[in-house]
């Protein structure tokens, strides 16, 4: 079967740099052409072309919002595509419907592994494939255990299959999830999609997972390996495709490409040049907050100093420790934690408002109104004696609705009727309404539309110019570039680099969090 050269709409715009397809052996296990997907008015996928050969590990990378997850979800049947042509082992497969399972030869292991940690390996395998029944309809536990052992033997996993999964290591759980996904699969005849399988793995267990992936490749199957981590791609993959703005912009043989090139492809041309101007303003020398030796689940000793009027960025991959920083400096971390946070004006860290990273789980009260969501952190200031002043609350809320352009049917409307971007504005208003000196933010633009994103950048920048100091973590380098004059890079729980001035650019940030030394 001839190999189709991978091209893309804007592939021709930057000629010469990209070594195209190198014809090697291996039939196509999966071929996707012209995959488009629109949510509302936003076209998320603009014609994705993707080939996975039998017997290869094909890495699939892209920045947040590039369309990477959407592509996987369409393949898995979770979203229907608008248009697409797809072949699995040369056999036509429709992608335009929503189904529980696309094709028996397409198997998926999602990032959360889809397991129930309270249940045993036996039960977890049965959950995805049903229990073996005896003649009378009861579960045939003996056969079920045997089946579980066989599935686990594939990768030499040796565990007590009756123990709850939570008692096993992360890599064992991942192996089990892969085993479950491959259950009853005629190996070598299809594609296994692994969605960021190492995101939750400690570094010491990653190599063991790689061996599992290599053994699957050796069996002749194709592996589509979704990852954020460039180092893994060079350790494991044969080819790599980069998706950006809904289009696969390049496919390389891994031997023919450098990490720098991949980082550049992920960011694109505009990334390096787009710089916000307002942020390099007036940062005083005065330190307003000092954190020393912060530790947590993933932080392993982080120090930082925040100055008046500064927006300090914290960059890092998921699991690097960066995501814990805003919670730690505001005294809101739960679980294992250590270190010291000093606010120089003597106030308590817990008085610093926090914009949490997960809006639904940690941010909004879906059953409450816009007004109640907005005022919850400053009820004292809208009370007269013991009684809440509804009039004062209305004034405050109306003021913020106007200031941030919150699109809401009214202050009394349930916040669940607002779009994600507008909910996020309410959470931000909740924090700013306390007129804080310091603000902590985690993923401030996650799931937020472009217009709101710009508005949030603008607002934070203006508040900082008025003396607000901000600590912000984001897995989206664009946030940090737009907001920060200084960025601390966190890897493996420690600050490994400090970027300032012109170094605060998407390329440099991505290289730094991946640990690629600057060229």
């Amino acid at each position, binding site marked *: 079967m001839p190999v189709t050269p991978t091209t893309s709409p804007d592939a021709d715009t930057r000629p010469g740099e990209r070594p195209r397809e190198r014809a090697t052996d291996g039939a196509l296990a999966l071929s996707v052409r012209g995959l488009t997907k629109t*949510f*509302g*008015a936003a076209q998320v996928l603009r014609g994705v072309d993707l080939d996975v050969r039998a017997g290869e590990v094909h890495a699939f990378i892209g920045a947040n919002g590039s369309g990477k997850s959407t592509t996987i979800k369409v393949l898995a049947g979770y979203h229907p595509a608008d248009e697409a042509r797809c072949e699995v082992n040369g056999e036509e497969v429709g992608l335009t419907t929503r189904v529980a399972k696309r094709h028996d030869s397409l198997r998926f292991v999602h990032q959360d592994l889809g397991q129930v940690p309270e249940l045993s390996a036996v039960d977890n395998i049965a959950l995805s494939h049903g229990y073996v029944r005896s003649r009378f309809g009861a579960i045939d536990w003996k056969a079920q255990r045997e089946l579980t052992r066989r599935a686990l033997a594939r990768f030499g996993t040796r565990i007590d299959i009756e123990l709850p999964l939570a008692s096993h290591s992360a890599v064992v759980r991942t192996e089990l999830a892969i085993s479950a996904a491959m259950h009853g699969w005629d190996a070598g005849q299809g594609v296994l999609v692994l969605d960021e399988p190492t995101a939750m793995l400690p570094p010491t267990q990653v190599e063991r997972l790689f061996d599992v992936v290599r053994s699957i490749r050796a069996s002749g199957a194709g592996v589509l390996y979704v990852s954020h981590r460039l180092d893994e791609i060079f350790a494991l993959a044969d080819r790599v495709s980069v998706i950006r703005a809904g289009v696969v912009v390049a496919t390389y043989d891994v031997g023919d490409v450098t990490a720098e090139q991949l980082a550049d492809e992920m960011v694109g041309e505009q990334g390096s040049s787009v710089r916000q101007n307002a942020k390099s303003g007036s940062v005083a020398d005065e330190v307003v907050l000092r954190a020393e030796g912060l530790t947590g689940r993933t932080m392993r000793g982080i120090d930082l100093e925040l100055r008046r009027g500064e927006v300090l960025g914290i960059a890092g991959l998921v699991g690097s420790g960066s995501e814990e920083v805003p919670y730690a400096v505001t005294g*809101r971390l739960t679980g294992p934690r250590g270190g010291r946070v000093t606010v120089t004006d003597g106030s308590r860290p*817990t*008085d610093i*408002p*926090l914009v*949490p990273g997960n809006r639904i*789980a*940690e*941010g*909004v*009260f*879906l*059953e*409450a*109104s816009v*007004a*109640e969501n907005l*005022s*919850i*952190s400053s*009820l*004292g200031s809208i*009370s007269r004696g*013991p*009684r*809440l002043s*509804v009039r004062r*609350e*209305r*004034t405050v*809320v*109306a003021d913020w*609705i106007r200031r941030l*352009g*919150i*699109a*809401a*049917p*009214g*202050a*009394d*409307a*349930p916040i*669940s*009727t*607002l*779009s994600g*971007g*507008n909910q996020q504005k309410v959470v931000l208003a*909740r924090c700013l309404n306390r007129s804080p000196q310091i603000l902590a933010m985690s993923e401030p633009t996650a799931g937020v*539309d472009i*217009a*709101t994103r710009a508005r949030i950048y603008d607002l934070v920048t203006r508040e900082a110019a008025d003396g607000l100091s901000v600590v912000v973590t984001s897995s989206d380098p664009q946030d940090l570039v737009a907001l920060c004059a200084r960025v601390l890079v966190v890897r493996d729980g420690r600050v490994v680099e400090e970027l300032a001035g012109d170094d605060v650019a998407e390329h440099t940030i991505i290289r730094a969090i991946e640990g690629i030394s600057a060229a």
Partner: protein
Amino acid sequence: MSDLQTGPAPGGPVVTGQAPGGPEKTDPVGPSSPADDAEAPRRWTRHLAFSNIGAVYVLGALVVIFSIWVPQTFLTSATLYQVFNSNAVTALAALSVIIPLSARVFDLSIGGTITLTGVVVTQAIVKYELGIATAILLALLVGVLIGVLNAVIVVVLKIDSFIATMASGALLAAFTTMVTGDLDVTGVVLSQGFNEVGQFMVGGITLPVVYVAVVTVVLWFVLQQTAFGRRMYATGFNKEAARLSGVPTERLRFASLVISGGLAGLAGIVLAGTLAAGSVTAGTPYLLGAFAAAFLGATQLQHGRFNAFGTIIAVLLLGTGVVGLGLAQAPTWSQDLFTGVVLIVALIATRYQRAGTANATVGH
């Protein structure tokens, strides 16, 4: 009453067919301007909407039905007084659980608390010959202490409140039996003053109805009008979001159980006064009735939030049904049947009503 908690205008027209998930769902200018003058006339219809006070309409329908069914006995002032007087303890029990429930904390020990505090107050008078006021204070203190005990188990030791208070309820029952030898506390002295706590009449209404009125107003004020109440609801809606926005969630959960312990103690004292005895089993039947009324009450007035006046409406609805069926000499199982049907229908109606508002509320 505060208009803030009422959410979308339930009586207003409901716009269907809105595309869900669009980034800008409505015109931000028009409807978001606060406190329109146009809102004032709409408030009345909004408050009187079936979705807001459906139970009141059902109560009206019940009155009509019973008036036709048993005209001689039902439509009398005696019936009215009976509905009020016979449900005062149920109302107190129901009111005692709404603060914890607002914070999504269950207090299933109130049955045990009611029994034990009733025994304590009567024992103190009969056996230890304490004054009535001292005995009442002692019993209230016991109720509060039970609340503290529950709070330590639930909040400090982080045990799920449902099972923890079920367990402590069992402990209270065991303790009650242990100290009384499973014998009710009786004595002539109980009918010489203490009984007035539960039996004193003012124009056909007994004192317990007055306590209920006072507690209702206080709880309404606390839940609907103070920062404390707002934070309590926030804790119940999303504990993590509340904690991260600076609400002292664990302290509030602790306080909620202390409050329910104290109020259940009050219910126990009142019940003992009504009976002029300390019964070793009297509290148990009030547990389910209290939760039934609290949950039914949450469907009234505040759109899914546990609240004091809604709870009272629920107690009256359930109480009227039970009294009416009694007067009609319907079989005794019909009373449980009535309670069960009303609860299920009310909760289903709320669910569908809320699903409706979630899908299509935007715009007026």
